[in-house]
């Protein structure tokens, strides 16, 4: 009776099994890399916006404070996306005929909202609040990056849970005096009028009455 399998069949089988195993491993690795990769999380992308708004120009060059436009950042969960009338509070006086601003003028004239593309956002199941972070001295730039250097706005970090928890577990290295949260140039070395208290950033944790391990890391802090 003839043999069913050639002498090399065993080798082929082993090679095949190894290839399948390798494919599975590589497949998962690629998938994981894609999921965790910046590309998937919209980091560093500048989505098309109705107006080519430059934070760099308004913040760094003109020195407008974040809160002039993002009005509810100290009192509400949402920072507040400025309504057209906030844009027009200046642009009814300056750059009144700029073609770049035509959509803004049209929005006011026709009472139709501008439709922006959100750059920084967290998933629906995350109940993030701006007000508490600002009140406890978490600077805007910690999450949003150096907005004052962005010609077009993009997302600085991927907003993954691990990244949130890094700070919730150890906020000390990031905190500032509350008055300095919107100051893009603040550093401990160059604090301007808002220096760190004696004891440095460690002292800030106590001053803000933060108990990171107890109060900031359980699930219901962000999920409910």
């Amino acid at each position, binding site marked *: 009776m003839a043999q069913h399998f050639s002498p090399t069949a065993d080798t082929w089988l082993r090679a095949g099994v190894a290839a399948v195993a390798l494919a599975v491993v590589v497949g998962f690795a690629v998938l994981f890399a894609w999921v965790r990769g910046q590309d998937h999380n919209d980091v560093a992308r500048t989505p098309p916006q109705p107006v080519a708004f430059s934070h760099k120009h308004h913040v760094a060059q003109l020195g407008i404070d974040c809160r002039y436009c993002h009005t509810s950042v100290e009192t509400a969960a949402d920072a507040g996306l*400025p309504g*057209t*009338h906030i844009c027009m509070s200046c642009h009814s006086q300056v750059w009144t005929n700029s073609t770049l601003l035509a959509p803004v003028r049209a929005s006011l004239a026709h009472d139709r*909202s501008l439709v*922006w593309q959100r750059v920084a956002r967290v998933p*629906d199941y995350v109940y993030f609040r701006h*007000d508490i972070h600002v*009140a406890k001295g978490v600077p805007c730039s910690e999450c949003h990056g150096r907005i004052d250097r962005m010609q077009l706005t993009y997302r600085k970090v991927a907003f993954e849970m691990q990244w949130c928890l890094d700070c919730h577990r150890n906020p000390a290295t990031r905190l500032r005096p509350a008055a300095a949260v919107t100051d893009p140039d603040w550093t401990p070395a160059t604090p301007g009028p808002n220096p760190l208290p004696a004891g440095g950033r460690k002292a800030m944790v106590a001053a803000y009455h933060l108990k990171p391990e107890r109060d900031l890391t*359980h699930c219901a802090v962000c999920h*409910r």
Partner: protein
Amino acid sequence: MTPVDIWRAPGGPTAETLEALELEFPMLARLPGMNRRTLLRVMGASLAMAGLTGCKPERSKDAVPYVTQPEGITASEAQYYATAVPFDGWAQPALATAHVGRPTRLDGNPEHPASRGKSDAFLQAAVLDLYDPDRSQAVLTDGAPASWAAFDTALAGWRTAWARSGGAGVRLVLGPTTSPTLIAQLARLRAAYPKLGVVHLPAVGDGLREAASVAAFGKPLQGHVALDRARTVVAIDDDLLGPGPRQVAQMLAWATRRGDAADRQHLYVAEPTPTLTGAAADTRRAVAAGRLPLLVEAIAAHVGIGAVPPGLDTAEAAWAVRMTAALRRDAGAALLAVGPYLPPATQALGFAVNDRLGNSGRTLWWSEPIAARGDDLDALAADLAAGRVDVAVALGCNPVYDAPALPWARARLRLHAGSHVDETARASRWHLPLHHALEAWSDGRAVDGTATLTQPLVDPLYDTRSLHGVVAALTGDTRSDRAIVRASWPMPDAAWRRAVHDGFTGGAAVPVAVVAKLPAAPPAPAAGIEAVFRPDPTIWDGARANNAWLQELPKPLLKTVWDNVVGVSAVLAAKLGLANGDMVRVAAGGRHVDGPAWVLPGQAAATVTLFLGHGRTAAGQVGNGVGYDAGPFRGSAWTLADVAVTKLDAVHAVATMQMQQAIDGPGIIRVVKDARGKAGENAPQDSLYPALAADAKPNSPPEPRWGMVIDLDKCTGCGACTVACQSENNIPVVGRDQVARGRVMHWLRVDRYHSGPVAAPRSFFQPVPCMHCEQAPCETGCPVHATVHGPDGVNEMVYNRCIGTRTCSSYCPYKVRRFNWLDYTGGAPASVEAQRNPDVTVRARGVMEKCTYCIQRIRTATVAAARDDRAIGADEVVTACQSACPSGAIKFGDLNDPRNVAAVARKDPRNYAMLEHLGVRPRTTYLARIVPDEEA
């Protein structure tokens, strides 16, 4: 401490229910025709499909700011407005929550004197009606879409004709109303067309009150009871604490005396069919409705009015003597409350007894009528029957269903204005869609007579008009609704703005001094079986039949849902061989009605109870065909003597929660004899869990330690908490079939227990939310840490981690966890999605959920306090159930804060933990029911 020997259903659990109870998930045990191969096939398919749930289109990234940001509105924060919602014509004061202009929730208005922030299930559920996908959205002529312009053109023609004829042959039919604006509009309408008739359909909860007032005082007056002033209340078939427009106000007043340890109110009840008042009473007696007039006469005789009637049995005679003694003891601070469905002469006699005892003007007082009064309903029926009505207009009511005796179809031209294309709309030429209360300017009076304003929270969702607008159009008045309502309240603009902001203006009704005349003797009782009619406990008169929250709210005493039943006594059931669900026919006077029998513990032996509000044919997709319609059988009677009850050869499967989520153990319900009675601390028993040191507290002060205490002595079982929780926490409705499978999703259930004999049991209610055990068994069970403990003691649910093993539920001794067996939320109509609370996750299929102690409210308060660098206020966090509870039975807060209501209640000697012996240290505890040692 007295643990009570309790039972849930008459006759105890059957072998079948016992078997079901043994199974952890009875809902799984009924998979039809499933063999191993099919199961494997289905499982394989499920696995394959499960992967697809990840494939969802990406959420839109559009960010749309206002053009001009309105002052005070932030997209993420809720706004609150005082307004009101009508119930039987009365304005129910409300504080509405809106998110970006979207009303999401109704609570009581905390500043309003009639409700003080409390609410009932009907008010809580009214917000869902706004988003009802079955709401009428367009003008219809003969069922075909038309337009308001077409109606306005037609109306102009009619008005010319009415101006010539003075409105002869024109009849307006409205529901009950207390709106000063509407009353003034109707007066103007009558002035413009002197021969036009206006009829108000009676409020179903008022029964024969008006006739009783006429019998006693010769004129209609509005009665008010002041339970907070009464030390002794004898209620004869008067459901003072039961559902209806006065429930919140009366429960509030009752609770102040009930909770007064030094001067607790005595409450004695005699009634034919069990009510919430009877369940709360110190003693309760089941007496046929036909015999109740005798009891009132006997009490009257003992206080010196008339003679003791013949025909009382010894027990009844002795009862009347005891009641009279109690009433005399507290004369001036007592109340003999005679129910609205009893004969007017009997009610009038009750008024006279209160006069004689000096209670009138104190616990019972009268004011001029508050609700609008119109022409006689019977005269309208006669006019319709005789063909004397040319134009019949139903405004915001449904006479074809509510008043089946009206031959509506005999009017030559019929118009209907209402929120739904209901039975009357279908029988009418024109249908005009109306606003929901949250879309309209209006006004009304609360049950205490306080003028209450309704302001719109949202632009009309559809092309509708307000009732005021439609009535105004009849006289050619083209002012806006706001202008019409504003004109009813002559006051400076600043005062008006204040009134709209507060939601009310002016004071309560003014008492009038009257003395009841002695009425003619009421009719002698008839023998045989009697039928009594009651509004449905959760659907009321049927106008709310399309509200799924109310359909799925268990009837407090019956624990049935999505149905109405024929309540029978155990004696009658035994005599006729009836089991729950057996169809019976109730017949009298050549008419009959069929419905499923249901044994009511505590029902008078020869009384059957028929519930109104069901059997709608044009309520909408929720309410159509639910239950039977007892209206045509009732006619205008509230008690029918000598009815025939026969068993039919059919069984109707009534969905009930009577035996669901049943728990077992010693001392679930505890009873003490007075307010100083001690209820807690069973002898220590073996526990599965390592003992905590006696003084161990998971956190030490000043950190919050959230906990809840529920006072069983103040809980009447009304169910407001269940709906309040549903509205706050985006809890889905699952429908009759799913409820029957034990898959109801309510996070807060109200368990009902009885003890004692079926004929005269004592009834107990026990709201059961998550216990937030300090040593929570569920947490040890979860393989993926989807349920974990927070530092403040809240047992947290992390929906995103949950993979649906349901282990936590099988480990839960209190059965408070609910599993999303199907996708109950995904298929909701877009309009219903708009109701959802954005602060709470909407759960998907395959996820476990349960009471979170309203974690969103805890977090909001915690963050607000931290933001402002202050401590959380003693009673700053109020859960949804607590905010609704009209009697204040539910108390919540930081147990480490000695000023907090729950912390104070914890120190009450009546405090006890359910299933204490398990050693899981629940954070939710109970205060034992107080049952004085008295003879029934």
